[in-house]
């Protein structure tokens, strides 16, 4: 039994109350255990082109890349990460190249860009790759924790001690990202691997959610509604809109089933002993 078949996905996306277009793109793929979200920006209404391109490159390329993982590289980065994680990093770089190529060919797409955050469940691990300020959160034992660090000017200011984290909501820099796809030939991709526990819930979201809804309320919605993942996704979007809905808002949820492959094996052993 693979972890993929134990992960349930649900998602919701909405233009919000203020904007006219939805430039967010999302996707899930149960076959390879993928959840991915891109928040497009810039260009003449081409933000949606950039985010949709990023998602399609990730979906197509990752299936191939995970099917034939390249032989272990010998540099330090390769030694620290699973081949799956490194494949996700390469696919993200490919998406960047593709966006740049399309932008060069179409004047209407000039200046378009997108954030990209993706996670892949693999056995008892989750691999995360991200560029920009679209976040991945984890709810574990009813506590919400942010697993990605925003590539935003605001987070840089807080980290440098220029702004207290409590004052961050007074800042006018929340929408300034320091990294994005479609910006430069080389893109710096953050990768991370974490253990997955049965009962974990993962939330991938665009800043339209976490700018409008406080973490405490996101945590509350996930804790209370984890039994009904599609409802939880819709309620999160609704909360962002109820609070003003200033931006596009997208959420992708994944729940790891309580019955893990490992536990299943142990239980069958005990079952055999009890006989």
């Amino acid at each position, binding site marked *: 039994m693979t972890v993929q078949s134990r992960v349930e996905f649900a998602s919701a996306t909405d233009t919000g109350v203020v904007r006219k277009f939805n430039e967010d793109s999302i996707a899930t793929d149960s076959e390879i255990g993928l959840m991915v979200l891109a928040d497009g920006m810039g260009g003449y209404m081409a933000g949606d082109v950039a985010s949709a391109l990023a998602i399609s490159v990730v979906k197509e390329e990752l299936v191939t890349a995970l099917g034939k993982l390249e032989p272990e590289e010998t540099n330090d980065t390769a030694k620290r990460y699973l081949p799956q994680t490194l494949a996700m990093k390469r696919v993200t770089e490919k998406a960047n190249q593709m966006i740049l190529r399309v932008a060069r060919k179409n004047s209407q797409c000039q200046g378009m*860009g997108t954030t990209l955050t993706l996670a892949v469940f693999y056995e008892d691990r989750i691999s995360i790759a991200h560029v920009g300020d679209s976040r991945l959160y984890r709810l574990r034992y009813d506590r919400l924790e942010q697993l990605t660090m925003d590539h935003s*000017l605001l987070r840089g*200011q807080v980290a440098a001690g220029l*702004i207290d984290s409590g*004052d961050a909501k*007074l800042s*006018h820099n929340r929408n300034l*990202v320091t*990294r994005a796809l479609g*910006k430069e030939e080389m893109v710096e991709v953050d990768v991370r691997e974490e253990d997955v526990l049965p009962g974990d819930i993962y939330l991938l979201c665009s800043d339209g959610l976490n700018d409008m809804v406080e973490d405490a309320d996101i945590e509350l919605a996930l804790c209370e509604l984890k039994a009904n993942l599609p409802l939880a996704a819709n309620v999160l979007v609704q909360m962002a809109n109820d609070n003003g809905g200033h931006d596009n808002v997208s959420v992708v949820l994944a729940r790891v089933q309580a019955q893990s492959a490992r536990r299943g094996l142990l239980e069958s052993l005990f079952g055999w002993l009890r006989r």
Partner: protein
Amino acid sequence: MAKLVVILNGAMAGNHFIDKGRITIGRRAGNDIHLDDPGVSKEHAVIQTVGNDHIFEDLGSTNGSTLNGSRIAKHILQNGDVIDMGAYQLKYANIKANPEMDYDRTMMIHAVDRKIGAVPLSAGRDASHASVSTARSSLRASFPLGEVRGIKGEFAGQTIELERPLKTFGTAGGQVAVIMRRPPGYFITHVEGNKAARVNGQAIGSEPHTLQEGDVIEVGQEKLEFFLK
């Protein structure tokens, strides 16, 4: 462009545009904004530009700086802020930093040397932003608080205020419904279980159901009555 209006004894005494990364304020003549008053320190404060923000910082002045009567050490300036220093007042005017205005679209910036400082924007789109907290609190305050009183079950005899955006009731794995607090009122929605909860004896179905004063809710082992305060 953002500007600072210098006010002395209630009258405008000057205008300074924030056109560089660091603006110094003090009694010494070499300051960008020179305030000649004994209550102002020689090097009183600075205003630093970071992205769209202008951050006011008191440099440990003798008599301090106050914003709306409270002493401040460091503050992200908001449109209309008035800061008192000695006999002078500085009024910050920046329509882009207006809490009543819309959020801007996400933009990429060049973090050239990754140092925190004045950061040029890559796109010339106008920025305008809102303070989330003000928008949110006004929405929350605009409709009455609801509560449920337990008639039967775990909460019998108790009153539970529905202050948070949502709360579930019922038996996990059995029958659960959620009561959501959202403008303009309260709604109950089915969460899990083969059968939906009942309101006044009627099953609520799969769509959100508006709660009215005096409605009786039956979910799992619970029987609850809904009220507005």
